[in-house]
C-alpha cells in the first residue's frame, strides 16, 4: 500500500530489510558457485513466488487475499535467498501493478521476504529434527511462513497506527488479515508439497547436495506411495 506508512517507518523497515537482501545476494552467489546444478531450482523458487503472489484467492471469511510462496525457496536455499526473490517480485508489483509500493517496499520485504521465510525455515528444521516426514515438514513450513507474513503485516501497521492503543490496533489488523489468510495458507502449503515432492522424485540428487534431505531420504516417500502402474 503505497504511502500508507509514515516515512520514518518506511525508512525503519528499509534499514532492517536491506542488509538481509544484501546477505541473500551473497548467499545465492555462493550456493550457485558451489552447486551450479541447483540453479534451475532457484528459478523455480522465484517463479513459484511470482505465480502464488499474483493469485488473489477468495477465503471463507468472504474476503480475498493472496499467498506468499516463500516456503519452497526458504527450505531449498535458506531464508536470506528468499528475501532477494521476494524483493524482485515486490518491486515488479509495486511499479507495474500499483500493488504494495516503493515506499512500503522495505516493510513488505521484511514481512514477506524475511519473517515469513525465516519462520518457514525454522519450522522445516524443527519438524525434520523431531523426525517428521519431508512432506509434513514442508507443508507446515509453507503454511506457518505464509501466515506469519500477514501477522507481521498486521503488527507493522499496528506499530505505525497504535490507535487507540497498540494491542487493540494489533487485534484490529490481525482481524483484517490473519483470518482470511488461514485457508489460503493451507492451499499454499499443499501446492508447496506437490511441487516439492515432484522435485524430489525427479532430482533427489540436487536436494541431497543442497543438504535439504538426507542421503537415504528419497527411498522413504516412494515406499510410502507405491506407483500405480
Amino acid at each position, binding site marked *: 500500500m503505497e504511502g500508507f506508512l509514515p516515512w520514518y517507518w518506511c525508512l525503519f523497515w528499509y534499514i532492517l530489510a536491506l542488509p538481509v537482501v544484501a546477505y541473500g545476494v551473497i548467499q545465492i552467489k555462493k550456493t550457485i558457485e558451489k552447486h551450479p546444478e541447483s540453479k534451475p531450482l532457484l528459478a523455480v523458487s522465484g517463479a513459484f513466488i511470482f505465480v502464488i503472489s499474483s493469485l488473489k484467492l477468495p477465503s471463507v471469511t468472504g474476503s480475498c487475499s493472496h499467498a506468499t510462496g516463500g516456503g519452497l525457496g526458504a527450505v531449498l536455499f535458506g531464508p536470506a535467498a528468499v528475501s532477494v526473490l521476494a524483493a524482485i517480485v515486490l518491486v515488479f508489483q509495486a511499479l507495474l501493478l500499483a500493488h504494495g509500493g516503493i515506499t512500503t517496499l522495505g516493510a513488505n520485504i521484511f514481512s514477506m521476504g524475511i519473517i515469513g521465510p525465516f519462520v518457514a525455515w525454522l519450522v522445516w528444521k524443527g519438524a525434520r529434527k523431531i523426525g517428521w516426514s519431508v512432506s509434513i515438514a514442508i507443508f507446515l513450513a509453507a503454511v506457518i511462513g505464509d501466515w506469519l507474513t500477514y501477522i507481521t503485516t498486521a503488527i507493522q501497521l499496528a506499530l505505525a497506527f497504535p490507535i487507540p492503543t497498540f494491542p487493540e490496533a494489533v487485534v484490529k489488523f490481525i482481524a483484517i488479515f490473519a483470518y482470511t489468510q488461514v485457508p489460503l495458507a493451507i492451499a499454499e502449503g499443499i501446492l508447496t508439497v506437490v511441487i516439492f515432492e515432484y522435485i524430489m*522424485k525427479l532430482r533427489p540428487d540436487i536436494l541431497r547436495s543442497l543438504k535439504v534431505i538426507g542421503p537415504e531420504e528419497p527411498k522413504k516417500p516412494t515406499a510410502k506411495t507405491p506407483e500405480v502402474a
Partner: protein
Amino acid sequence: MVDKRPIILLSLVVIIVVLPLVIYNGLGEDQGYFGGSDDAGSTAVEETGYQPWFQSLWEPPSGEIESLLFASQAAIGALIIGYILGYLSGQAKAKRRENDENIGVNEKVKSSK
C-alpha cells in the same frame, strides 16, 4: 504410472478456493464480499485520520489492465516452472535410460564370458 497423490492434493486446493464461492453464492462486492483484505487494511488505516503521503508512480488505468498484468505475472511464473520441471524430468529420464543401458551392457559382458 500415474501417481494419484498430486491429483488428490491439487483437488484439495481447488476445494479450498471454490468453497467460499459456494458459501457466499449470490453475494458480491456490493454486499461487502470478496473485496481485497489489502483494501480493508488501507481503509482501516484511513479511518484513523491518516492521509497517505505518497501515490503510486503509475497505476493500471482500469481493472482490465490490472488483471492483464496480474495474469501476465502468473503466466511468466508458470512458464518458468513448467519449463524447468520439464527439463529436470527429461534429465531424470535420460539418466535412467543411461543406467539401464549400462546394466544391459554389463549383463552382455557377463553372459559373453
